[in-house]
Structure formats: C-alpha cells, structure tokens
C-alpha cells in the first residue's frame, strides 16, 4: 500500500491538498446532486395525480334550491354546503357586530356581490374536521341558526361564522364563481 500513496503524499506536502482530495470531493458532490435529483420524483409521486387534479373544480346547478333550503354536495372528496339564505337570515347575519367575533368577517365578505343569499362553504368543521349539522332538512342548526357540529359543539351562525365552541375559524368559503344565475362553479 505504501507504494500507492507515495506519489500523492509528495504533492500533499507542497500544497496541503492532494489531487485525490479534489477528485474525491467532486465525485461525491456529483453523486449527491444526482441522489437529490433522483429523490425528487420519488417523493413527488405522492402528490395528487392528474386524475385527482382533473376533478378539482365542479359545476353545480342551484336552480332548484328554494330560499331557506340548502344542499350538500361533494367537492375534492369533501362535503360542500350550498345554502339559499332567507331575507330574515341575511338581516340576522348583518345585524352582528363583527368586532365581537372570533373570526371577524361580514356576510358580504363571504358571498358574491349581488348574490348575498348564496352562502357556499365547506361542510368541514374548522375544529377537527367533522361534518356540521344544519344543511339537511330537520337537522339541528345550533344556537345561532346556522350550523352545529355535534363532535365538539361548535355553533355557526347564518353566515357560517363561528360563534360558540372550540372551532378556531369560520367555515371555509371555497373559491367559487357564478357562471349564470343558476350554475355555480366551485374551485
């Protein structure tokens, strides 16, 4: 082994760095970069695939929903509540002073201008993800006439804002757009 090292040690004594050190660092760095480039697709494959993303927006016909009614539908495998608020529920929501709310938002913030009666939210309690009651006929709507989550007792008002219970924020309003008076595109 001594013979193999001799030539290199002579150079090392002069500069402190052997040629082999450079080759070593270059080779290992290159292999490291290659490893990172390989790992990226191996991890990225776990992200939503093209067929999942293709279903990421839906169009819903809302023509049959009367004032005071709501429907549950499914968007990205999660429940969506689409609620046609009555004039009474709208004024109830607007009467609340937002300064006193845990997550201050007005009804207008949460709806489309001119379509304030259409309240579209995820049916997913912001506490731990249960589906709140109140969208289907006959279900308990909670103390504030909106939604009530039976898991841990979160009460939402007619603008689906959190009013009482452990949930940290209002029910999420997904990105949506009215394509016509009767069709809404969610996502």
């Amino acid at each position, binding site marked *: *082994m*001594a*013979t193999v090292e001799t030539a290199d040690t002579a150079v090392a004594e002069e500069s402190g760095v052997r040629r082999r050190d450079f080759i070593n660092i270059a*080779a290992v760095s290159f*292999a490291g970069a290659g490893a990172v480039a390989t790992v990226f*697709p*191996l991890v*990225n*494959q*776990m*992200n939503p*695939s*093209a*067929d*999942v993303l293709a279903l990421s927006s839906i169009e819903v016909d809302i023509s049959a929903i009367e004032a005071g009614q709501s429907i549950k539908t499914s968007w990205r495998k999660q429940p969506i509540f689409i609620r046609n608020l009555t004039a009474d529920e709208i004024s109830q929501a607007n009467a609340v002073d937002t300064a006193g709310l845990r997550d201050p938002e007005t009804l207008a913030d949460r709806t489309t201008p001119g379509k304030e009666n259409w309240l579209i939210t995820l049916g997913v309690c912001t506490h731990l993800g249960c589906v709140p009651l109140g969208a289907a006929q006959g279900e308990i709507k909670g103390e504030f006439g909106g939604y009530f989550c039976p898991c841990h007792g979160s009460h939402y008002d007619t603008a689906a804002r959190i009013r009482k219970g452990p949930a940290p924020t209002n029910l999420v309003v997904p990105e949506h757009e009215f394509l016509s008076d009767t069709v809404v595109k969610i996502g």
Partner: protein
Amino acid sequence: MSFPWAKEYTPTTDFGQWMDKQLPLPRFIYNSVGAGYPAPRNLNYMWNFGSLAGLFLVVQIVTGIILAMHYAANANIAFDSVEHIMRDVNSGWMIRYAHANGASFFFIAIYLHIGRGLFYGSYKAPREMLWLLGVVIYLLAMATAFMGYVLPWGQMSFWGAKVITGLFEAIPLVGKPIQELLLGGFAPDNAALNRFFSLHYLLPFVIAGVVIMHIWALHIPGSNNPTGVDVKGPQDTVPFHPYYTAKDGWTIGLALIFFTALMFFLPNALGHADNYIPANPLSTPAHIVPEWYFWPWYAILRAFTFDFLFIPAKLLGVLAMFSAILVWFFLPWLDKSPVRSGNFRPKFKIFFGILVIDVLILGYCGGAPAEEPFVMISQLAAAYYFAHFLIILPLLSRMEKPEPLPNSITESVTGKPLNTAS
C-alpha cells in the same frame, strides 16, 4: 472473520466509543465494507457485479414500494391502475419503467456474477455455502420476477401465469390439485393476482435477507480472485475501502448510465407489446414468450417433445427445466478439480466458452417460436448443457493437467517472487 492483519476499528470520538460499546454498528460496517475488510489486490472487473446486483435490488425495492402505492391488485382494475400510473401519477411512467427495466438489469448483473463464479471456481471449497446461497437468491429472484410480470394483468401476464402454473399440473397424481391450490381457482383470476401481489412484495425482502447471509458467508473465507490462489499475507490484499468502494462506485455510475439510457430512450425494448392488451381468458396471444432472462430455461422446457419410457413429455420438460438450475446446487461436488481459476485450466477454459455459447443459443431458441429448426437446436443445446455439468466437469477434473499456479497473488501481479515484492 477476515484476516488477522485486518485493520482494527478504533472510534476516535466519545460518541463513537459510546456507540461502539452499546451497538457496534459502525464497527460492523467498517469490518464489512470499510477499511477493516482486506480484499485480494488483483480483483478484476468481473468482481463488480455483486455490488451491481445489490444496487438493482435496491432500485427494485424502492420503485416497487412506490408502485404499490398506486397499483390495485384486483383483476377488474389492475390493468387500468397500471395505466393510471403511466398517465396520471406524477413521474409514474418513469418509476414504472425503472421497475420494469430494473428487473432486466438485476438479471444482467446476476448472470455475469454467476458466470464469474463459474469461470473462476468461486463455488469451490471453502466457498460452497456462499455458492449455494447464491443459487437460492437466483431462484427467489426468478419467482419474484415471474410474479411481478403477472401484476399488470395484460395478455402476457395472464398467459404467463397460466403457462407457468400449468407446469405444476405435470406432476403425476397431485399436479392438478397443486395447480388449483396455487391459483386459488381453475385459471388465473382475482385470487391468483392478489396472492402474487402479496408474495411479490414479500420475496424481495426475503432475497435481501439471503443476500445478507451470502455476504456473511463471503466474508468468512474472503473473496476469491482471478488466480484462484489463496491469500497468503497482507501483501496480497488491499483494504476494501477506499480501493473497492471507489471501484464499485465507478461501475455503479456506469451501470446507472446504461440503465437510465434504456429506461428513458428504449423503455419497452425488453418488454412485449402484447402486455399492453388487457388480459383476456378467451384468447391466447399468437406467440407467448417469457421475459428474456427466462429464455434459456424456457427453451429447455420446450425441448422435450417426446415421451421417454413411461414419463410423458410434459413432465420431462418440467423436470429438465427445474433440474437445469438445481444442478448448480451440486456443482461444488461435480467439479472436483483442486484448481479454482479457469485461467490455469486450459481444457476447462474451452468447455466454459462452449457452455456460454450453448446457453446463449438456448436463450435465442427460448425467445423464438416453438417450431423447427429451433426445437431441434434446443434439444441439442439442452443435452449439451446437462452434459457439461454431469459428464464433462467430473471427467475434466480427473483428466485435465492444469498449468502451474503462481506462488501467490502478489507474485502473479508483480511478476516477481514474493521476497522481493514491496
């Protein structure tokens, strides 16, 4: 294990010493693939294929685990789920092509590794157990590869499963019940697909376990070398690290270049187009062939077209095919020549060359249609294959006069007698 002059692992840090007392894993690695494992100084490139087979086993396990995240082992949707991987899953096409071609590269590495062992007599004492474990790995790899090929549930998958499980039907009396037991039905269907998937996931880890025993058995006598002469002293070896880690690293880089070139530019070159047709139990493809790495054995299977004594042709073919590999288990005791390396056996060298050509011919015939002249060529080549192991090798070891062996590895490398070599 290893030689008395192997470097001792000495942890320099406090943490290293603490670790060494409680779980000497760094010591284990140091003594297995580090500076603490002396390896013969004269190993040539044929000694690089073991690490390459290991590399592709890892590629197969990693890509396989990922594919299992997206694949559905259900006869109704298996084919669609593979297309889902190809079209929808992020980089899914790449991972599947890596897995499909990784199998081929695993077998390329393993065949060259076996060929190295055959030529340099690596199966001889004191390495019989090492060889036997290697044959076990090969058999497990064949079973794994076969079951993996069934999973896409294309035409070749389905008919491959039918034909290979049909082999067991040839066993007298119990054949039919065994085939039904293996398939969980009368033809390949959901039950078979599910158990193949389960076992295809399990067996690579069994292979990894046997590989660990294989390496363990290797490290007790240490590596064979191109002269076949035993290591006699420290001057005959170099530490595994950095000498062979660097050399293995270099061929790993080369192998990955060839692998990615095939995977990106010719991903279906080694596959069969018929497997992109969903499985159809009512229609057999015109030309059924297994993957290329099974071709030599497939040729031996098909070579038996005649009944012999009271044994039907079907059973003969199956017995011959399994015997062709099982004969390797007896190889250390069939070749009694005390000289390991083919380099010093002038006649063996010639017969080894003929065997390689013979296996290549068998491989070609196995991939060709089952018609003349391939059937007759297969018959002759199969006969020679068995003659090599059962007649030629035992006779050669008695009759051949080997060339004089070098006194030591160092002498063969330097060309100088031992006492003057540095």
